[in-house]
């Protein structure tokens, strides 16, 4: 284990009298390198939050190994927690305290100098509302307060679960810029988010989890490349599209038809398409790799968790 954060073969099953037995994590593994902004993605109920809660000592794992900053968890969590800032799911604060009081109490409990409170309030843009009670804050403001609380410790590792939740477009942009600047300062950030466009813009690497198992991990570029290789857009004369689709399907390709083009997957080389169609006097006017983004990869990989295979893209 060499990363800032390493998880190996993590397992967790929730048992409830009412809801029965539910396996949240099934041998999940993950690694985050120092200084990276690492996207941690997965559909609802895939095990993301459980993983983060286990890391932070809020939930006990059934088995598996974890290290953060070289310290084995959960035993060494008290020693390492001062260097880990975390926001898990919706931020929850005591509603009748002001923003400043909330942070000040955490700072006192954690032995952080009181002056840091105003610094982080300024950093997240809450300085002018710091004296207001938290119950009067919008969801976005609570989110900023939560992020401010994670930054109080000046952590080496920042774990953020849906930090943009409730933020307006301007707030999302500010959050993105804040994370860029933190990452630029050398902080390692684990970012769980459903805003995949943000993740793609911001993250160096990603891990995608589904049904408690890792389905892919690697740098964003590698994950995209690995999942776009066999998807091609094929254009022909519009009247030839149905015939071409039937021909390619019969020859073993997977074809999706659109009104002016086909998307073909499941082939070995692009030449095979031109050759197969040319043999029947159908000539291709465009043959291009389908541009995909993280969202389409995510949907492709997590759409059917039962068939998702574990993939680690070499780095």
């Amino acid at each position, binding site marked *: 284990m060499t990363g800032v954060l390493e998880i190996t073969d993590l397992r967790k099953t929730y048992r409830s009298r009412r809801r029965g037995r539910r396996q949240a994590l099934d041998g999940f593994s993950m690694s985050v390198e120092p200084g990276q902004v690492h996207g941690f993605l997965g559909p609802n109920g895939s095990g993301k939050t459980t993983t983060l809660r286990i890391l932070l000592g*809020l939930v006990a794992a059934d088995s598996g190994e974890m290290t953060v900053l070289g310290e084995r968890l959960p035993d060494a969590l008290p020693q390492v927690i001062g260097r880990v800032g975390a926001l898990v799911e919706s931020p929850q604060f005591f509603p009748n305290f002001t923003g400043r009081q909330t942070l000040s*109490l955490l700072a006192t409990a954690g032995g952080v100098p009181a002056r840091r409170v105003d610094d982080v309030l300024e950093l997240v843009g809450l300085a002018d509302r710091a004296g207001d009670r938290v119950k009067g804050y919008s969801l976005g403001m609570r989110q900023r307060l939560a992020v401010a609380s994670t930054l109080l410790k000046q952590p080496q590792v920042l774990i953020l679960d849906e930090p943009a939740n409730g933020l307006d477009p301007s707030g999302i942009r500010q959050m993105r810029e804040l994370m860029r600047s933190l990452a630029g300062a050398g902080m390692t950030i684990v970012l769980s988010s459903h805003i995949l466009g943000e993740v793609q813009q911001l993250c160096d690497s990603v891990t995608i989890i589904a049904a408690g198992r890792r389905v892919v991990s690697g740098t964003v570029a590698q994950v995209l490349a690995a999942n776009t290789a066999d998807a091609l857009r094929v254009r022909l004369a519009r009247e030839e599209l149905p015939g071409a689709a039937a021909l390619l399907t019969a020859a073993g390709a997977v074809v999706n038809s659109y009104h002016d083009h086909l998307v073909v997957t499941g082939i070995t080389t692009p030449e095979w398409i031109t050759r197969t169609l040319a043999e029947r006097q159908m000539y291709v006017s465009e043959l291009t790799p389908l541009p995909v983004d993280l969202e389409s990869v995510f949907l492709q990989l997590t759409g059917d968790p039962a068939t998702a295979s574990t993939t680690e893209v070499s780095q």
Partner: protein
Amino acid sequence: MRLAQAELRRLFLRRFTRWMLLIAVLVLSGVAVTAAVSSTPNTPQTQAAAQVQAEQQAREMAEQHRRDVAECEAARARGEDVTQSWPPDCDIYDYSGEVQASWFLPYEFVFRQEFGSYLAVFFGVLTLVAFLVGASFVGAEWSSGAMTNLLLWQPRRLRVLFTKLGVLLAAMTTLTLASGALWTAGFWLVGRFGGRLGELTPGAWRSFGLDGLRGLTFLLLVTVASFAIASIGRHTAAALGAVVGLGMISEVGVRILVESLETPFGERYVLSSYLLAWVQKSYTIVDYFGCPDGAACPERTLVLTWHDSLLVLGVGAGLTVLAAALSMRRRDVA
């Protein structure tokens, strides 16, 4: 230590704590002011005024007596049956000789005799406040999610739980001692200047001191139990619910059960017996089922002392804390 500082600040930053303390101050001030205002020192002037009132009352009663006797005898002379309204032979008792001046003295607070009752009121109010503040201090933290945030800073869960409890108990002890000193001083002043102190021997002070110590111990046991139950239930209402539930089980369920089974000294299984023994120093239970059917036999009694109560309440509070610690240690914080 840092955590304790933060928790102490948190306790007194909470509006609920402040409101409860304010309500306690208002209620206790009201009681003290009422006692002070209603008490008048017994002076020669008040005694003379009372004597005048008593003589006046005696004269009026003697006059009334004379009128009644005359009316009665007149009726008897007319041959009427007087026994409907008066005694036979019109032998009406004259109460005028029994009128005493002390009946007309204004209320005078006597510290030695009455401070014990006021001490009970003081601890009653503060125990209620301690119960609510104790339950809310951890219950509201759990239900609002603030506890989860705290655990992200202090992952040693038992340390968090026991620091909170320790801070709460220290705060309640300090507040009780400080306000208890004010309460005692206040009533001493009422006795000194608005009433009478009575015979304040060292024994009297020791007795008040022991009453205070018993009151403080009970307050702290209640605080511990409410804190622990609210922590187990992760909500302030859990402690309130537990009190209602325990009350129903103990005072209704157990009572019905021991009476239907004719259990000897069945009240010893009822929680309120121990509360009464604590407050009154002892509580005597009579065995109503000890004699054979219809037969007379010597009454059998069982005396519960405050020592018995301390054992029962202490074990109860200890078990709730143990359960809270186990729950805190093991639970998944969702």
